[in-house]
């Protein structure tokens, strides 16, 4: 879930409406004196501030003589233990079915250069231990901002493109290279190389956005993906309408809405697409060795089919009681029908022995099954509830749940976190994977699992 020290958007929003009330221990600030005699000891209370230039305060933010370097480091050590099917087999705390220790160390380093008010160069690199693994170090963002006449704002380069408004799920998020991880929905997603143009409609908060996305370094002009979005603010609601086109890809249209009902923020997102880039498995059999044991559909057969995906959710946050609630439902029109899912899983199970022996490795079969079943449903829901200062100060409780409503399997993760001091916190989580034998979250967790993990976060922070 979100790391400590970073506000979730919902929490931050509450903070905003209450005013910036974010607190940190005093640094380099003397405690103010409240003694009137000290304060008004001399008649000299007026200091003259030089007349500033138009927009100088803004300029100091937008341009800088030196490039800023910054970043963040996060480190943690997480021992975890897992038991499978403790409901049936009995839970023996001394002999977990699997256990491990996961040390993690990662860092993001960025530079931010602003030679003039209208130009900015930004780049960031992510790296993670072990460092000799080439995949662990990569350029995460690299873009330049420039503008024309304070009305058209351009960004060119590798950048995150957040299109949807969903929190746990966002079907409109089609341009980023990553999709949202429901376990860490606040994380920044890696984006493609693209050109973005933003036009804020003068005198309003409406915005028009246009994108050209470049997929590879070696491509034809006609392979560029084009997208556009308009955002309107009307009566307490922000509405978005957009479209996405790329040759040989399904053409997509989307609508988004964010607003509030009483104290609750609500959001919704709907996408329609003509055609699909997904292929569905139509048969699983050990006889199909040459095609990885499956036959699949051909995307071309669905070129005239319209697929709908929609999601809606809500968030509620009460800063006084420290409670934040998020909930979201997703309908995925590209998911399997229940009958098809069941048939494929049954086929895979029936042929388990044969496929295993052909693969020569039981673990590969497990991966094969997980790949088959991942995101195969049509109905999903996720929710989280968190309470800060739970029972005692600095202790927070979070309950996270995600469920596949098509096969009634779910993954639940209640956790308790305690911050000892800046730089060290501990989080105790338990996880439950529940459902039927072939339920998505049961398969993904290698069975109806019960797990315990203790994450010790050490010396993480930003600079």
């Amino acid at each position, binding site marked *: 879930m979100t790391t400590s*020290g*970073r*506000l979730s*958007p*919902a929490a*931050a929003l*509450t*903070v*905003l409406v*209450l*005013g*910036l*009330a*974010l*607190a*940190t*221990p*005093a*640094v380099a*600030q003397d*405690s*103010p004196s*409240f003694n*009137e005699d000290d304060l*008004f*000891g*001399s008649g000299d*209370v*007026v*200091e003259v*501030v030089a007349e*500033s*230039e138009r927009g*100088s*305060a*803004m300029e100091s*933010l*937008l341009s800088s003589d030196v490039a800023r370097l*910054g970043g963040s480091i996060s480190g943690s050590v997480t021992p975890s233990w897992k038991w499978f099917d403790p409901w049936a087999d009995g839970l023996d705390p001394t002999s977990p079915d699997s256990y491990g220790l996961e040390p993690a160390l990662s860092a993001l380093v960025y530079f*931010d250069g602003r030679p003039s008010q209208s130009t900015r160069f930004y780049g960031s690199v992510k790296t993670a231990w072990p460092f000799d693994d080439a995949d662990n170090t990569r350029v995460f963002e690299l873009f330049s901002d420039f*503008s024309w006449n*304070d009305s058209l*704002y351009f960004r060119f380069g590798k950048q*995150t493109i957040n299109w949807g408004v969903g929190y746990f799920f966002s079907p409109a998020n089609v341009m980023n290279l990553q999709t949202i991880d429901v376990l860490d929905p*606040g994380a*920044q997603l890696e984006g493609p190389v693209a050109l973005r143009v*933003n036009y*804020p409609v*003068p*005198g309003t*908060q409406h*915005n028009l956005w246009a994108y050209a996305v470049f997929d590879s370094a070696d491509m034809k002009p006609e392979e560029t993906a084009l997208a556009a979005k308009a955002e309107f*603010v009307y009566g307490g609601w*922000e509405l978005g309408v957009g479209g996405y086109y790329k040759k040989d890809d399904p053409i997509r249209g989307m609508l988004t809405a964010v607003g509030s009902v009483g*104290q609750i*923020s609500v959001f919704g997102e709907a996408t329609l697409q003509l055609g699909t880039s997904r292929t569905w498995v139509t048969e699983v059999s050990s006889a199909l060795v040459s095609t990885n044991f499956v036959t699949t559909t051909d995307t071309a057969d669905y070129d005239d089919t319209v697929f709908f995906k929609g999601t809606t959710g809500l968030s509620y946050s009460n*800063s*006084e009681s420290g409670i934040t609630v998020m909930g979201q439902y997703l309908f995925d029109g590209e998911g399997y029908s229940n009958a098809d899912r069941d048939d494929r899983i049954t086929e895979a199970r029936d042929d388990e022995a044969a496929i295993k022996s052909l693969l020569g490795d039981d673990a590969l079969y497990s991966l094969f099954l997980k790949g088959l079943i991942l995101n195969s449903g049509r109905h999903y829901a996720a929710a989280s509830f968190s309470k800060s200062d739970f029972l005692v100060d600095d202790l927070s409780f979070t309950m996270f749940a995600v469920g596949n409503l098509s096969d009634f399997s779910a993954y639940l993760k209640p956790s308790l976190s305690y911050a000892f001091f800046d730089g060290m916190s501990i989080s105790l989580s338990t996880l439950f994977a529940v459902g039927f034998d072939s339920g998505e979250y049961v398969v993904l967790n290698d069975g109806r699992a019960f797990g315990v993990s203790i994450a010790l976060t050490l010396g993480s*922070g*930003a600079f």
Partner: protein
Amino acid sequence: MKRIFAIVAIALAAIGQAAVAQDAPAILAELDRLGDFSGVDFSAVYTIVSQKPGEKDTVTQVRMFRRDARKQFAMLIVLPEVNKGQGYLREDDNVWFYDPTSRKFSFSSIKENIQNSEAKNSDLTQRSILDDYDVSSVVEGVIGKIPVWILDLTAKTKDVSYERVVMHVRKDRTMLLKQEDYSVSGRLMRTSLYPKYAEISGRLMPSQMLFIDELNPGERSQLTMTEQSLSALPDKVFTKAFLEQVNK
């Protein structure tokens, strides 16, 4: 938390209250005139230090851009470090929050949060002291070493936040140095001190403000302003594009 919002909200209301005083109504009129920021843009860096008994002092620093004429503000967080780069844009009841760590904008139109906070009525909307209060007495006094007029004001209507307000206004140059706010029942609720002023474009405004919560002993806060500016801000400051450009 809400306390800090209250402080920020009243900061502008208290800004710029100076003139040469002859009589009480003239002083109030001058305070009103100088407190009226409806036609100008304002920007500054706000630093708020809050104290609560038994807790560490907390420091919040933001860069604020305001255009009251259109009920707009853009605000960027400087401190605490973990929230640095986060930005807020407000127009009317619509608020956008930009989080640089996810590069996401979140939108909200929940207004009750402000209405429920301690910042009430006069703290949030520009009001006229002269219209709201009658002067019940004016006496001379000294605060520290500075001679002041002590104006005792009583609310004219029943919907102003404080039934009685006592203002200590500097004699030689109209500056509010101290203000005490009383409840309907006559109890002192809040004392505000304005020990430092800045003069900008010939206009006086407090640059240091101290707020003492008289009902909760030990709860007090200090707001200091630096880099104040009254010069016009470009329209682009109040756009999402700006928030995205200026983040860390």
